[in-house]
């Protein structure tokens, strides 16, 4: 049998390259990709570069698709969305996601939907090179009936019926971090989300960082990713905006609120994207 996910083991040096070059090298039309970050460290700049690169037909994976996925969906990059919570935190709906699901604009998208616990475990299985993970979840609800990626499984020791969720297999993981060093080791801290598991579930990895430092000084609670787990590092200061990088930038809450009005209307959305992403 084939492992669900063969962890990358490249030992070649990380490329530290401009973002456009990194995206061109790593992301292909039709790929399954995750731009992860749970409110914090969301790789917005990389998402915008993917939109500009014209890559389409993507399966977009993320626990909490927020504005950057709303933008990618509204620009027609997404064929399928694998997720567990799709909203604008504290504000309301993602209107481009809703328009795609409710009205098929600009194109219909397929949904593969989980709970957070299920998605987190699917990433953990991917990172572990296992075909599935086990959790006590989903029982009695309707989610399992709408996907083939949740199955009941009996515990071989106790007989308890649990849920198995299939591993996530990513072509590309994209994350934003605070720091890389000059050889491409990466450190992120604050809310570290699911980024380590996403990176270790992916065949190719892009990390955008606030800055390159001579030597990484370990921080309490930080995640450090050795350079050989990463293919490309791009230096993009404020590359998480309107999300934030703990220790470097503040979350732009006003933008999250403003996005509600921008994204409600198709024309207003298109025109905002033209001005702020496509011609940026």
């Amino acid at each position, binding site marked *: 049998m084939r492992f669900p996910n063969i962890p990358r083991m490249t030992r070649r040096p990380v490329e530290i390259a401009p973002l456009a070059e990194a995206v061109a090298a790593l992301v292909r039309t039709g790929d399954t990709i995750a731009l992860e970050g749970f409110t914090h460290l969301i790789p917005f700049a990389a998402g915008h570069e993917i939109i500009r690169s014209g890559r389409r037909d993507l399966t977009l994976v993320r626990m909490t698709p927020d504005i950057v996925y709303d933008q990618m969906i509204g620009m027609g990059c997404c064929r399928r969305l694998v997720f567990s919570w799709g909203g604008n935190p504290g504000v309301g709906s993602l209107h481009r996601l809703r328009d795609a*699901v409710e009205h098929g604009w600009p194109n219909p998208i397929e949904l593969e939907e989980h709970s957070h616990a299920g998605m987190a475990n699917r990433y953990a299985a991917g990172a572990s090179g296992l075909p599935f993970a086990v959790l006590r979840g989903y029982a009695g609800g309707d989610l399992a009936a709408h996907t083939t990626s949740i199955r009941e499984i009996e515990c071989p020791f106790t007989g308890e019926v649990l849920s198995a969720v299939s591993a996530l297999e990513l072509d590309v993981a994209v994350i934003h971090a605070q720091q890389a060093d000059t050889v491409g080791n990466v450190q992120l801290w604050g809310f570290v989300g699911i980024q380590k598991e996403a990176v270790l579930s992916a065949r190719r990895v892009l990390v955008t960082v606030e800055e390159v430092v001579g030597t990484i000084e370990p921080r309490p609670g930080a995640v450090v990713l050795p350079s050989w787990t990463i293919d490309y590092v791009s230096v993009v200061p404020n590359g998480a905006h309107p999300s934030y990088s703990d220790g470097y930038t503040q979350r732009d809450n006003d933008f999250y609120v403003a996005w509600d009005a921008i994204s409600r209307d198709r024309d207003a959305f298109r025109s905002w994207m033209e001005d702020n992403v496509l011609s940026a």
Partner: protein
Amino acid sequence: MSSRLEPDTRVAARYTAAEMMTIAAARALPDRGTCLVGIGLPGTAALLARRVHAPELVLVYESGAIGAKPGYLPLSIGDGILAETADTVVGLVEIFNYWVQPGRIDVGFLGAGQVDRYANINTTIIGSSYAQPRVRLPGAGGAPEIAASCGEVIVVARQTRERFVERLDFVTSVGHGSGRETRRQLGLRGRGPTAVITDLGVLEPDASTGELVLTHAHPGIAVGEVQAATGWELRVAAALERTLPPTEEEVRVLRELEAARPGGGAR
């Protein structure tokens, strides 16, 4: 916080129905317990509780903050203030697998798109077709496992016929299923919803059937009004009580929190 030293327990002169709901929800939280704070209204109520009567309440957020002590209401559960003030910050695999799943959290505090008579929750879609919904809601997030595994669950939601429905369009998170036996049959370990707190009153599951019963009506709210805002024939407890009206302190602290909310007071 001088407010805690000199509580102003006079009844508030003016307050809104939404404020009454948030205040009633805050009062339901125990001091010294652990509370998993869901997205939206629960965040406000949990912080109010910590400010007014439950300073030792441990706030846990699914973003990974354990023991957060935010000085103001964050717009999202991933705002930096929650990580900065937490006892510890953990990743997402850990928060669900090590903290929620084993039942380490006393109270799960959730909002809801739709609620039914057994306090089951829908936050997925409105409409008859999953594939082509009338309204696409954000989805499950952490709620299914919070509802399954926390010691108990408190739901807070504005009460309307559109929200409190006879039949959910989608069961995202299980409350009492189709009656008192459901949770045991499904192997759900927590006690499930113990209260649904709304802008009109408090609904609690009947001890034998699990069906929600109106146990408290908020001040000035008639029973008929609550029943009219419910999409099923809402039963009323024999010993129906009146919710104590908000105190001056509760209203003042709540308004301070709302006024200082970042993002221009989004709700």
